[in-house]
């Protein structure tokens, strides 16, 4: 099993790398090079920081084209985490930027009076039994979040939801394209189980 963590020069990947190691993944490579990405069994798109800056880096590194080739044409499984999950959507209000457009969804600011922002801490995720990402986990399991923008979509993208001020999308799974708003690598056994499910089921 070779997993490539797509490096667009933002965010820290130590926790993800060590979680994958813990799960026994043999080869973990951090790269933005075409050949490495093509040779991966699965991809992880990590990220913290601002959406617009991330898209700028992605374009600078030609990763928008590379990812479109391997994810949309070649159907390689990809897991976006936190900002990485948002980046695969159409558009974000954060910096008013277009995303990669793999998933029919938009990212908006939390907009409720007196709600403490960012949404930070463990929160309960509501999924349905078709969501293979959560296999073996109880509904309303806790995952660790830290973000100020949220995903919304009117489409069926295999979403799971969570509530903070309002309901929003915290994960999607559409064939080979998977994203989670929370950080599985920081969510104790619940998160490790979810990463294991991604590796096994996608």
């Amino acid at each position, binding site marked *: 099993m070779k997993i490539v963590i797509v490096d667009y020069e*933002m*965010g*820290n990947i*130590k*926790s993800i790398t*060590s*979680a994958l190691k*813990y799960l026994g993944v043999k080869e973990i490579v951090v790269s933005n090079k075409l050949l490495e990405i093509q040779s991966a069994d699965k991809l992880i798109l990590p990220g*913290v*920081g*601002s959406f617009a*800056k991330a898209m700028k880096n992605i374009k600078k590194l030609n990763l928008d084209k590379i990812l479109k080739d391997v994810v949309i044409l070649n159907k390689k499984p990809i897991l976006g985490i936190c*900002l990485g999950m948002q980046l695969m959507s159409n558009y974000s209000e954060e910096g008013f930027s277009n995303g990669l457009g793999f998933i029919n969804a938009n990212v908006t600011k939390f907009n409720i009076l*007196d*709600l*403490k*922002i*960012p*949404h*930070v*801490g*463990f*929160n*309960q995720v509501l999924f349905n039994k078709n969501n293979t990402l959560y296999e*073996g*986990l*109880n509904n309303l*399991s*806790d995952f*660790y979040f*830290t*973000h*100020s923008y949220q995903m919304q979509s009117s489409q069926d993208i295999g979403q799971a939801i969570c*509530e*903070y001020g309002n309901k929003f999308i915290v994960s999607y799974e559409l064939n080979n394209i998977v994203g989670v708003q929370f*950080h599985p*690598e*920081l*969510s*104790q*056994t*619940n*998160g*490790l*189980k979810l990463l294991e499910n991604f590796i096994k089921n996608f």
Partner: protein
Amino acid sequence: MLRKRIIFTLVYADDFFTQSRNFRLQKVGNINWLEKNYKFQGIAFSLDELIVLNASKEKKDISGFANTLSRLVDDVFIPVAAGGGIRSIEDAKVLFDNGADKIVLNSVLHTDINLVQELIFKYGSQSIVASVDYKKVEDNLNVYIHNGTKKLDVELYDYVKYIENLNVGEIYLNSIDQDGTGFGYDLETVNKISTTSNIPIIIAGGAGNEKHLLSGLKIDSISAVATANLFNFIGDGLPNARKIILEKGLNIARWIK
């Protein structure tokens, strides 16, 4: 439902983990001592988050601190915030590269706003925890920087508002008077601050047992409670505290076995 968090804070100074009392540090043991007495890979299942602070008084040796941090967080799958003595983007990067998921800023919030803005731009607001140390003097709540040695000419409420406007992710509010006493939190002050604040507040200073943690967790407007008491939670202290808090039905996270 968004859960409340229980955070363990480790205070590091010159190769040792320390017990702080009113910001006076007592050396307790090095990383080997800590691994023997706390076994973090196991203990982490009683915690929602870990904060590691570098309080070295002389030269703040970031690389030594980062090495210890890196060893500490191996196979620990909860968020880790680290800080103390961050004076540049490079300092922050070293901590992120060695296992920090967030960084903790204190003195630079006052002395170097440009750096704070750069760090927020690079890593995002949610990666920045603003640490605020305060002390009660008569009726005033004074703010201190540089490990509690320099008093600022600003009142705590105004300082917290100022920090919120910097657009940081969370505030770590630490009472120097209560620090390390085991007498419980300064609930009067944290109550006032947290109800008017629009970002998450972590309270610290004074928690010596699970009753103190409970007293903080019961306050709606508080997001997290922290304890840095190395002595009171040694061995099974943290797992037992979490068990009791769960049994009382408090709103904290649960994980599969």
